[in-house]
């Protein structure tokens, strides 16, 4: 008890210093906030195995006893550099398995996200970053030099020290050499405010536990962007040196790849460089490490004896011994398994809510409703650059979008499609998420078929074909085609078809295999799609709202134009061009206030244009958690940027016995 208080005091001092060192015109986040919260938690200590005096899991204590493992103190970082993780409810007990399901190794992120350890992670609210693998950081006044401190004495899961060399190695020999099939992330480029020219950052080692990232131009959002683009800005150098062709030669790498079962060295390097957490032989910094072949019917990850986080009492995390992932072939098996109590934490779709809720007692679990920053749960995006020029012109006409919006009864959609779990509102930023605009949810949300018809007539779609469908003014066929890669939205689309065709607009839905859909997206053959925009903050991740590359259906080929520097694609004009302009200003701006203001401008343009039309608000995400699983937060925003369940800090989950 005493020891941990000293430790805590030390931590406070350090973090205050760290905070003091940082850029003084911005309120630096959690490094200084963490201890305060920890204190609050500490006031409600719960009887745990802390009483026995052991600070580590019994399994590990046994190994230490047999001298198969160094003692705890040698495994943890030096006392002042241990990361203390807040617990959600109470201090936990060691032991137990976290059981979950996945569809196999292709479902890499199902275990990747919950176990992820990023250099910097997002805080609970998802509004700012906080140090994680990094201990602290400082930024100079114009946001060009970032000095990042690592934790002294921290170790990889095989016991080798983790130092700045691992960061430098990753930067020099992997990321900039593009060994694992990814281009250098956009976060590492800063933008000249005048010319818009991009410059790559420089990474330098200061000492074993400090390195700097230097940008040519100010990059205020660098850490947030890294926290999304490149969560793990490091790799186990001692391991990678034994497989990278640069060190062992092409022939040897090919041989090792064969040995691991890979046909091709490139595929091998992608898997070992990027999806490393699936491989038993690769050391990681995660709370649990792989111990079986991911291709087997059950994938098992076991606790990392060198994990570098403890609870406030100094108990090494994680509390739970293993993650046991069962391979399933159909989502219904995940549901049935949960009903039977086979899985102890699993998120579901809104449609499963009723059946989950009704079987709560029988399956001995509780259903939590987490939220997501999604704009809608039933909406369509209209590709502004769709191939057919007449259709493109129509999609770009704001009156057409309004007609499609007011021509559908949102009450009907929410009742049928979302089981009454969503509001009958327009696609818009949900309240509480960055970019929320007053009145957006109600924009064009009233069901008014007369107005819709009037608008369509106004646009000039007055001619009808023999089946009564509207045609283009020149009499040629007008068909709206929605392309889908799954049948998930079937019910919604069926309903939509009825409403659209009541307006005289011929509407087709085509479901293609997901791979084919991806190809069609690149080939600009997706005029409409039901993908929903979901983003915590455009400034952190622009993909959905700013056309920078081919990814989100509404901007189609505008993205290709940006991606190829104007060589291919469609040149953005009007409001879309303005969004890109705002984005460039945002990237080059030197203060957080400016960034917030510019980001908000981008949202306003989206509100005005409503490229995504929504017929129901976002639904919550039902999460079934077994009753003995504790420290799972009641409320959480599930977003990809903040790593889904990972945001709940699974290392402190525990099973109450």
């Amino acid at each position, binding site marked *: 008890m005493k020891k941990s208080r000293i430790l805590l005091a030390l931590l406070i001092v350090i973090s205050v210093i760290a905070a003091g060192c940082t850029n003084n015109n911005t309120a630096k986040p959690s490094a200084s906030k963490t201890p305060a919260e920890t204190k609050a938690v500490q006031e409600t200590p719960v009887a745990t195995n802390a009483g026995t005096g052991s600070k580590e899991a019994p399994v590990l204590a046994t190994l230490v006893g047999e001298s198969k493992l160094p003692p705890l103190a040698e495994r943890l970082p030096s006392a002042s550099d241990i990361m203390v993780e807040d617990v959600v409810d109470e201090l936990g007990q060691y032991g137990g398995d976290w059981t979950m399901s996945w569809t196999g190794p292709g479902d890499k992120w199902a275990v990747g996200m919950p176990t992820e350890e990023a250099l910097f992670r997002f805080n609970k609210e998802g509004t700012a970053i906080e140090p994680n693998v990094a201990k602290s950081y400082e930024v100079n006044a114009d946001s060009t030099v970032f000095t990042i401190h690592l934790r002294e004495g921290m170790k990889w899961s095989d016991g080798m020290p983790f130092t700045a060399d691992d960061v430098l190695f990753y930067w020099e020999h992997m990321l900039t050499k593009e060994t694992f099939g990814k281009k250098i992330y956009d976060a590492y480029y800063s933008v000249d405010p005048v010319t818009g020219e991009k410059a790559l950052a420089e990474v330098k080692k200061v000492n074993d536990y400090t390195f700097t990232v230097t940008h040519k131009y100010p990059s205020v959002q660098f850490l947030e962007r890294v926290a999304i683009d490149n969560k793990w800005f490091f790799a186990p150098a001692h391991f990678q040196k034994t497989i990278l062709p640069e060190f062992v030669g092409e022939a040897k790498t090919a041989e090792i790849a064969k040995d691991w079962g890979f046909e091709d060295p490139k595929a091998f390097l992608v898997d070992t460089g990027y999806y490393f957490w699936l491989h038993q032989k690769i050391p990681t910094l995660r709370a649990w490490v792989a111990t079986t072949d991911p291709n087997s019917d059950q994938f098992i990850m076991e606790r990392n004896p060198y994990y570098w986080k403890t609870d406030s009492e100094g108990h090494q995390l994680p509390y739970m011994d293993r993650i046991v992932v069962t391979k399933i072939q159909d989502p219904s098996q995940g549901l049935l398994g949960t009903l039977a109590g*086979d899985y102890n934490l699993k998120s579901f779709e809104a449609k499963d809510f009723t059946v989950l809720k009704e079987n709560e007692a029988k399956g001995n679990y509780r259903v939590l409703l987490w939220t997501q920053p999604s704009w809608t749960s039933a909406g369509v995006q209209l590709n502004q650059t769709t191939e057919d020029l007449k259709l493109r012109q129509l999609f770009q006409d704001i009156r057409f979008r309004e007609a499609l919006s007011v021509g559908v009864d949102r009450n009907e959609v929410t009742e049928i499609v979302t089981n009454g779990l969503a509001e009958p509102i327009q696609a818009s930023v949900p309240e509480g998420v960055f970019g929320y605009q007053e009145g957006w949810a109600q924009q064009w949300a009233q069901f008014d078929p007369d107005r819709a018809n009037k608008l369509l007539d106004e646009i000039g779609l007055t001619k009808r074909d023999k089946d009564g469908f509207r045609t283009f003014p020149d009499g040629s066929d007008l068909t709206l085609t929605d392309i889908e890669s799954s049948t998930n939205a079937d019910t919604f689309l069926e309903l939509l078809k009825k409403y659209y065709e009541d307006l005289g607009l011929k509407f087709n839905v085509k479901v293609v295999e997901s*791979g084919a859909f*991806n190809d069609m997206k690149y080939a600009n053959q997706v005029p409409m799609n039901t993908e929903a925009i979901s983003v915590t903050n455009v400034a952190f991740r622009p993909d959905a709202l700013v056309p920078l*590359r081919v990814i989100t259906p509404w901007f189609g080929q505008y993205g290709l134009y940006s991606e190829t520097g104007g060589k291919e694609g469609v040149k953005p004009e009007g409001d879309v061009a303005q969004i890109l302009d705002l984005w460039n200003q945002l990237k080059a701006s030197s203060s957080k206030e400016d960034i917030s203001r510019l980001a908000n401008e981008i949202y306003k343009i989206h509100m005005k244009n409503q490229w995504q039309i929504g017929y129901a608000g976002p639904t919550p995400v039902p999460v079934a958690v077994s009753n003995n699983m504790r420290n799972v937060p009641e409320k959480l925003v599930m977003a990809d940027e903040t790593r889904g369940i990972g945001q709940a800090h699974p290392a402190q989950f525990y099973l109450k016995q």
Partner: protein
Amino acid sequence: MLRYTFKRILLAIPVVFFISFIVFYIIQLPPGDYVSTYAAQMAASGDNMTAAEMDQMREYLGLNGSVIEQYAVWIKKIALHGDFGFSFNYNKPVTEVIKQYMGLTLVVSLVTMVFHYVVAIPIGIYTAVKQYTAGDYIFSGISFIGMATPNFLLAIILMFLSYKWFGDPLLGLFSSEYVNAAWSMDKVMDMLKHMIIPVIVIGVAGTADLIRVMRGQMLDEMNKPNVVTARAKGLSTMKILFKYPTRAALNPIVSTFGWSLSSIFTGSTITAIVLNLPIQGPVMYNALLGQDMYLAGTWLLFMALLTVLGTLISDILLAWLDPKIRTEFRGS
């Protein structure tokens, strides 16, 4: 007879080759390829690939060439090195993937098949002997309903009932704690428990057909002169039953046995998907969906081989059983 068999085997070789090409072609017929499926899967979890990354991947996986080129490379490797290629999904040689699932597939298939014959043949005989009695109606009724219910739905309903009544839907082939455990008595018992639903679902459906064939044949055979004569001679019922009609009635069942050869190695795909059985069927289904073409191609090639072999076996059996056909073969 020998010459005929030999000729048939010789003919089978080009057929198998031809099939392998068609199969390879058809696998790639749906739009997209493995890389686009892979990219879509990654995109679904927020990990987007750029067009350039996809092209690069295509190049190193050798998916750039035409179908014919790819086929030539593949078949050459098989012929020269016995190398069936590589599964993209599993990051493993194709043969290893097939090996991984073969054991349990055979276990599931053989258990269902034994159930099949052990249940169907006696019931077939019984319902024939006791024609139009309550027993006949009950057994026929159950087997017919089993046959008339779509397998996948029967599986889902049984799974749900198992959950409703016993709290355990019996998903998969093992309980969670036994999946990676070494074989033991407990593990076998656990597996047998999990085999109940698959055996009922896969077994009952096929049983109905078999019972009907058996029953029909028995009814025919029982009125034949040899049986009537035997009866006149005063032989006991049981003896007559097994000496003449049963033996004769088994003939068509034996001769169609060859046809079921390929299904033994796949198991029932849709039922296996529904029940989460770790056997070949679902693995191949996913390989086809994801255009993991060497895996799918090798498997289908293997299936083609079995189909050809199955036809061969049933032809030879047929020739051997039916003198009329036998003469025909000699004549040609």
